[in-house]
């Protein structure tokens, strides 16, 4: 589903050899759930942005669904993000002026051709996603009226809107108490089983780590395997 080979990323003032990513190799297959762990500031979010094609200032190769991101034009990359990727940001990035259902349906605005039928179809699908994460009753609420857990689930519903084959989540349960985190995790598991997509989660949450098929640790700019706990 996604393959990274020798990916390096350094920021201004860093030597290429001292960058935040120093030759990351990774391959995630269909239906697989991979957790990436590591200390704060080790580059987990950067890795996720590179995988999503949001950050193109890397060296190495990133291939998503058979397409090398470096070879894609900006427009093609945008289309790939819309069709094949779902992203849950650590800061969620919900738009305060939109209701939950409109936040979820945001990707529809930029859909092309027959990706999603009219506005009614988009709302229907957004409602379906909200019900999937257990927020069908809160569709008309704005982010300011939702709890932290509910906002997290709205962000998850938005990421799932286009039923993407690859879901990238940054600290999906990081800001949640254990109980709410468990609810979100349960929903994610349902979704994964329902759609069969691959999931990469960057997390500190032991429960999420426990649920993953594979756990990788990012340290010193490189990924290395870590054994998962009992599942």
């Amino acid at each position, binding site marked *: 589903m996604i393959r990274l080979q020798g990916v390096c990323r350094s920021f201004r003032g860093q030597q290429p050899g001292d960058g935040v990513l120093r030759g990351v190799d990774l391959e995630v297959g269909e239906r697989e759930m991979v957790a990436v762990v590591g200390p704060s500031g080790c580059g987990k979010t*950067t890795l996720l942005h590179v995988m999503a094609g*949001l950050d193109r200032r890397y060296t190495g190769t990133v291939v998503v669904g058979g397409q090398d991101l470096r070879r894609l034009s900006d427009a093609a990359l945008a289309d790939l993000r819309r069709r094949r990727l779902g992203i849950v940001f650590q*800061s969620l*990035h919900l738009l305060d002026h939109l209701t939950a259902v409109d936040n979820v349906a945001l*990707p529809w*605005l930029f859909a*092309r051709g027959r990706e999603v039928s009219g506005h009614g179809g988009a709302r229907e699908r957004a409602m379906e996603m909200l019900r999937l994460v257990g927020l069908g009753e809160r569709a008309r609420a704005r982010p300011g009226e939702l709890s932290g857990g509910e906002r997290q689930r709205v962000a998850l519903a938005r990421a799932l809107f*286009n039923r993407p084959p690859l879901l990238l989540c940054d600290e999906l349960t990081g800001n949640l108490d254990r109980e709410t985190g468990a609810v979100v995790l349960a929903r994610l598991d349902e979704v994964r089983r329902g759609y069969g997509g691959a999931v990469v989660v960057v997390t500190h949450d032991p429960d999420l780590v426990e649920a993953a098929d594979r756990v990788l640790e990012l340290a010193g700019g490189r990924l290395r395997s870590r054994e998962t706990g009992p599942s």
Partner: protein
Amino acid sequence: MSPLRLARAVARDLALHRGHLVLASLGVVFGTAAFTFLLALGEGARAAVARLLPVDRLEVVPRGVEVNLLALRFGLGSDTLDAASIAQLESVVGVAKVYPKMQLTVPAVLSGGEGLFGEAMYTELMADGVDPVLVAGDAGAGFEFRDLEDPNDPRYVAPSVSCVSDVDCGAAEFCGEVATTPERWCRPQVPVLVSRQLVDLYNGALRRAHRLPKLNPEAVLGLGADMNLGASMFGASRGPVRRVRLRLVGFSDRALPLGVTMPIGYVRRFNVAYGSTTDAGRFHSAVIEVAERSRVAEVAAAVRRLGYDVTDRGAERLTLAVTLVELAFALVAVVILTLAAVHIMHVLLLLALERRREIGLMRAVGARRADIRGLILGEAAVVGVLSGVLAVSLARGLGWAADRAALRLLAGLPFLPDSFFAFSWQVVLGAVGLAVAACVLGALLPAWKASRPDPAEILSGV
């Protein structure tokens, strides 16, 4: 992004950011309003000039050589046009039609006005004759301007009622001689047109000098006065004096400025009756109708090359002056609009900065750079349309107020138009188009800048 989705997103964003956008549009509204106001003023001035001095028509006269001898000036050569001259003028490229004009070469005194002023007024009368087609549409409602005594006209009715005085005849008739015979018959009154400038002059200055009442131009249509052909207030009369009753049937900007204009057939018959048969084919000028306004100068030059003069009634120079003033107005308006575009660019740049996170998110969920640019430019275009409509309304309101103020301040001046402004559909469309252009041009840089950064740069604040 489909146009429908773009429209939906634009509508939503306009509602959300209306405060900023109202602020951004203020400059465009005032700039476009100034543009519309000035342009409509220029168009109004042009229309007023065209009304007073029709610029698609040239008046052509024979070119003569004149010799001054002390206080007198003598003309050498002919000072009239004949049928051959008219045919020659008709052959000039760009000429649509030639209308010969004939001056009344018989002295005449106009008398009448008892009903209006309480006593009869007398004045030396100047008159000319034109083809009724030239002034078609200038006769008032219910009146007609044509030669009622043209035997070649199928509508002609020969006089059949003999009379002694006007009371023996119908309301629109008078009792007069036919040709040179002494018998008198009931004849139709001669329809005449007068110039609006004449009415303005009378109402503005003449009536004050003579302490006469002001005239309502619409109410004097149908009134009559006597033209005493052959009589003169300047010297001895010429030939027998014959009374002809004139009837005012309308106002025309093409009528003789200080006199009356009648169908050319009457003037021809009067000139022949008091002169010779050759006078029937002697015209004193001809009005050339130019096919296209843009070819006026070209036609005028061709006519001059043929040995004729084009009388300069100031039309060309005044039109040039109006054009220059319009250009100056347009320049001022363009400067204002440029400043407005810079202003809207500044506000939209700030707005784009404020919406950075939202734009980054849109890019992350699949918006192309072109989508972001389309969104911002679409918003700018809608703001432009709304600003343009508002600006045109504002300009119209200002124009109305300016008209009211000017008409109050300048009351009594002759030649005042009904309005100093002409808000033609071209001006209105141009104004809205310019407002849209200013907004869209102002939004180009913000749209480009907003769409450039990588989403990660925005969302992670790198």
